[in-house]
């Protein structure tokens, strides 16, 4: 029984990690209908920002998280104004090619400044090691991830999805001309949403660096997980991304524990099954 619950907890923690990693992509791809694979690069940038501010300036880990959010948010805003906004109307393939190109550029840029080695990531002592909770020995950092992920989901669902701003974003995407005719500043709405998506990716990079490591190859290594979670969850829904993260996380950890021979394969099997069953994802809006 203990092991079942420990596995469940670890699965939920991994699911939260997947949710945190993909929610930025979910915002830009789902709400704005823009396929921005470079979200993975924004995550990497967030990780490097966290490492830089904690090590160079001695800022504590917790304080570095909002800094990563803001820095990457601003960086993505600049990129949105310079590059992305010219591609809002284009087809998916153009966007995929553009953003994958940006990933390669980001890898080269990061290698130039930080070198090709892995960065040293250190979190405060109270987040390392384990803690007895109700008779279970749980990893502290994982508990932290569950709390942060839960809070993030709450804030995003009730602060972004179910608000006037969320409705405005959807209106701008679904019918840009009518939205403009109604007096909405679509440019501003897109820029803001994009910055929020980028900032979330940056936050994710800072939060995940402790578990996933941070090096120039980060975006390519984890991009596929981001895409899986967003597709399984469904476009344009933050709660869908959360559910997808949890289903995949728990499924992955449980299968790796009970049938390790095929454990690594299960996350892909679930993805294919969900896609066959519901092509728009678990909670996806029909296009």
């Amino acid at each position, binding site marked *: 029984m203990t092991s079942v619950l420990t596995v469940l907890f*670890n699965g939920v923690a991994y699911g939260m990690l997947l949710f945190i990693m993909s929610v930025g992509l979910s915002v830009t791809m789902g709400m704005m209908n823009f396929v921005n694979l470079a979200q993975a690069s924004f995550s990497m940038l967030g990780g490097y920002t966290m490492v830089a501010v904690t090590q160079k300036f001695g800022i504590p880990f917790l304080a570095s998280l909002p800094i990563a959010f803001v820095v990457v948010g601003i960086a993505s805003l600049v990129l949105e104004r310079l590059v992305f906004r010219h591609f809002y109307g284009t087809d998916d393939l153009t966007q995929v090619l553009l953003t994958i190109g940006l990933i390669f550029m980001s890898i080269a840029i990061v290698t130039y400044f930080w070198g090709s*080695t892995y960065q040293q990531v250190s979190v405060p002592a109270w987040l390392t090691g384990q803690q007895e909770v109700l008779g279970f020995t749980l*990893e502290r950092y994982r508990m932290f991830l569950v709390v942060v992920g839960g809070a993030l989901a709450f804030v995003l669902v009730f602060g972004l999805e179910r608000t006037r701003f969320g409705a405005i974003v959807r209106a701008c995407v679904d019918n840009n001309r009518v939205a403009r005719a109604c007096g909405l500043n679509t440019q501003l709405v897109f820029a803001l949403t994009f910055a929020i998506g980028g900032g979330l990716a940056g936050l994710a990079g800072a939060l995940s660096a402790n578990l996933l490591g941070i090096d120039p190859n980060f975006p390519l290594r984890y991009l596929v997980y981001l895409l899986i979670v967003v597709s399984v969850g469904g476009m344009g829904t933050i709660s869908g991304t959360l559910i997808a993260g949890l289903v995949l996380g728990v499924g992955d950890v449980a299968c790796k524990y009970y049938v390790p021979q095929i454990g*690594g394969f299960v996350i892909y099997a679930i993805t294919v099954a969900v896609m066959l069953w519901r092509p728009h994802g678990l909670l996806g809006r029909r296009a």
Partner: protein
Amino acid sequence: MRTLTLSLTAAGLVLGLATHANAQDSIKVGVLVGYSGISSLSGQQTDAAIKLFQKRYGEAPGGKKIELIRRDTTGPNPEVAKRLVQEVVTRDKARILIGPDFTPNTLAAAPIVTEAKIPTMVIGAATTGIIEKSPYFTRTFFATPQQCKPLAPYAVKNNWKRVYVMVADFAPGHDCEKYYISTLTEAGGTVVGNVRIPLSNPEFSAYMQRIKDSKPDALFIFMPLGEPSIGALRAVNDSGLKASGVKILAVGDTTDETYVDAVGDAALGTITTGIYSTQHDSAMNKEFVKDFEALNGKSPRIGWTAIAIWDAFRLAYDGLEAQSGSSFDPDKFMAFVHGRSFESPRGPITIDKATGDIIQNIYIRRTDKIDGVLQNVEIATLPNEGFK
């Protein structure tokens, strides 16, 4: 107009002759390693090692000026490696090759270098038996059994008889698993469980739970360089497996100096096998480390690629010195290399007379903190380990 053409032709002829004359006393050496992407670190290590080697020993061994031709293999991509080897050999006329790195690349190079008679130093591929694929292959790296076998008798000797075996799920991992398990059983130990972990695996907690359930004395880990190694060691630490008293044994790649700092204190106490540690206690190594850091800086730290390249150049330079004054003969070169023993910063090494593969000391090391830096400290030496 005509005079101009004539003089141009004449100038061209003279230039042509000059290049030809130079070609007599220069030799092209192809260096094929990963300079980009996931394996760019090996390119960096390669260049750093070459820079120091040439600074120390000059650029013209035996009177032949070395012309380096660097090519990026981009990682384990046999079709790319094959094309590069072909180009470097047929078009650029390289006479000696260092690399290509990785086993699939090395295998792809074998038929070409055999036909063209190009002595080739294997510097980044560890699979057993690949050196026999060409009479022109020799290896200055290591062979998988050298890394994977020694920790089996070592565990039994220390009375850690129940061992859990965890390897990465790809060909080298399967190889290592086979060598470790058979050696462990022979030595009287027991495998209490084994698991193969996908190469792309950000989540280790389920595996850690399984390992805990089987209550082993020790855990043996084989993970490739980089993020899988970092992830595995961190998981072993964070899950409390190490704190529960399970000994952590691993191949040396897992605590490679180039990224052990990213693992952090989670690496402490790991017992590994290795061919080279910057901590190796010899006058030659101390000087090597000092000069290397003075020339290339302290970061990235010196890893195994650097040492493999260093010894490949040692062989190439010695072989060329031996042919000083005559034109390059690949067969004489290989005859010279085979059976050769010399001291390297890693310790004494011998190139096997029959196969050209490497025989070297294997060191059992423990990851410790020395002056605040994680180091692989050699705690036992197994002299002259073979490659089978």
